[in-house]
């Protein structure tokens, strides 16, 4: 697992899910499984931008692109642009 994935997982567990007995992996479904609310994704996307140092045009991101940490990182690479 990459450092970016670890950082994102850590953030999602501590700041979004906030349940001590819940652990997630890079391929754990998050929204479709009900672990996180889709409205939390604004904050997750902001964190994803920070972790990847990329600017992600939100209008190009679909719900399915954000369902797992792996998908988020893939999406960031696909649509993200270097920050200036």
């Amino acid at each position, binding site marked *: 697992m990459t450092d970016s994935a670890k950082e994102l997982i850590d953030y999602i567990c501590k700041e979004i899910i906030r349940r001590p007995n819940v652990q997630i992996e890079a391929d754990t479904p998050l929204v479709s499984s009900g672990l996180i609310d889709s409205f939390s994704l604004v904050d997750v996307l902001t964190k994803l931008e920070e972790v990847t140092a990329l600017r992600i045009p*939100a209008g190009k991101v679909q*719900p399915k692109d954000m369902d797992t940490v792996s998908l988020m990182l893939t999406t960031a690479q696909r649509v993200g642009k270097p920050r200036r």
Partner: protein
Amino acid sequence: MSDRFPPVPIPFPTLTEALFAAPQQKPFVTMWIDDDEERTFTFGEFTRWSNAQAAAFKEHGLCKGDTVILIMPQGVALMAAFAGAMLAGAVPAILAYPTFKVDPAKYRFGLAGVSANLNARLVVVDASLPAEFLQSISLSERSKLIRVDSLPPVSGNSDVTHTSCKSEDLAFIQHSAGTTGLQKGVALSHGAVLRQLAHLANALEIRANDRIYSWLPLYHDMGLIACFMLPMVHHLHVVMQSPADWVLQPESMLHLISMYKCTLSWIPNFTLSFLARRVKPENGNYDLTSLRALINCSEPVRAESIDCFAGAFSSCGLQPTALQSSYAMAENVFAVTQSGINGSVAPCRIWVDSGKYQSDGIVVPAKKGSGERMGFVSSGQCLPNNEVRIVAEDGEALPDGHVGEIVIRSDSMLDGYYNRPDLTSLSLRDGWYWSGDLGFLLNQELYVTGRKKDLIIVGGKNIYPQDVEEIAFSHPAIHDGRAVAFGCYNANLGTEEIVLVAEVGESSNLEDSSVIERAIRVSIAAELGVVPRAIYLKPPRWIVKSTAGKPARSATREKLLAEHPELRIS
């Protein structure tokens, strides 16, 4: 309905004629995605693209009067498809495109309901619309689903003659605000839209060099009418971005207004507080001097939000009188009222005695510093050929200063809800549209106080949930815009009680929850004269939001009742 009113001069019989009359070289739309990704289309380029779309739609069998559903991301392609459908004589309807933060199950439910009612001949979807959503579109035997990538590209051109329409023909269907899936399709004629735009342009004293900024979605009236139809018909330049991009970069709105010297913009009330809290003026070198009207619309107008924004950005050249207001709804095409933006006057504000207001629904001006009082900001005066009445439960008209339901009559009213005569007859009676909003008139100014169905009646006192929520927002530990108040009936007391749920800004705030709760409770009691039954503080992101990003009152209520079943027991 327009026969009741004196005719208004309209230079074009239809919206498409107005587009054809535009100066070809003038910029029409700048779509901004990022600093290195933006594109501007002139009226000429846009018209050619729209014409090519019309030709393609006709090849797909589209005929005059057919409905066309458009499910595409915010952008010029969507606008060209919309105009193209009108050029083909058809009736387009834009449906929300799913963003990353939409709940897929809720979206599918909404899509199925709305598309079934529209019974469209063509359903045009973006190539990237996920298959899981495609399956939820209701298609009849005569429907045809086409992907945008099968349509002509930007450079597409066609000499096709557009299908001529008359002023009274349906132009498009826009959807009223409401729970997804239960949204009502508002059918509007070319004439109704053009009359509304003529009144609006008159009220705003539109000039050829006006430039509009917008992040508003095109599937809502504020985005579609004020930020697409108005510039298309009056040949203005509009600078646009998508709502999703704006939410992640709220400062981009101020950046674009500064860069393009935009003069007009429409926003819902929460935008003002959101920007004031999220954007530091000193970080952006913003110049807002060009802005002659930033129009607060679609939510009750809040003095606190206006003052918060004015305080934060007055150093950026924001004119105090630029912060204006309007009362609008899809059923009237758009605006019913507009505050005066050209007399260098800000919207009227009044302070009223809160006791009389809550117990009797009567507005009695209170002097500053005297007892318990509440402030209201006007949404302005009626546009020409628009009439507002305030009525009691029994339909009797109420005099000035009495709170009641807002009913409207105008020459730009809807013909009816599309395929829903049942809903039409409920809302349109004797030529008047019953809005379901509450408010009062005073000196010809309309003050909107809330939604009728949300009103909480505590021991005979009318309490607006927005007032309770505003008190919660004013506490520094509460996340702005993230609180919901509602009434819970107590059978023992024989009346409703107030329940408030609010999100804290940081999880760590919950350690001080008893102190925060007490402070909010004291403020509610002091300002509204009622004591809430319960206040629940929740961690960030707990409140359920609607697709428009506002707290979803009924869904949040259900979530709270599920977590706290004790609330169901009085």
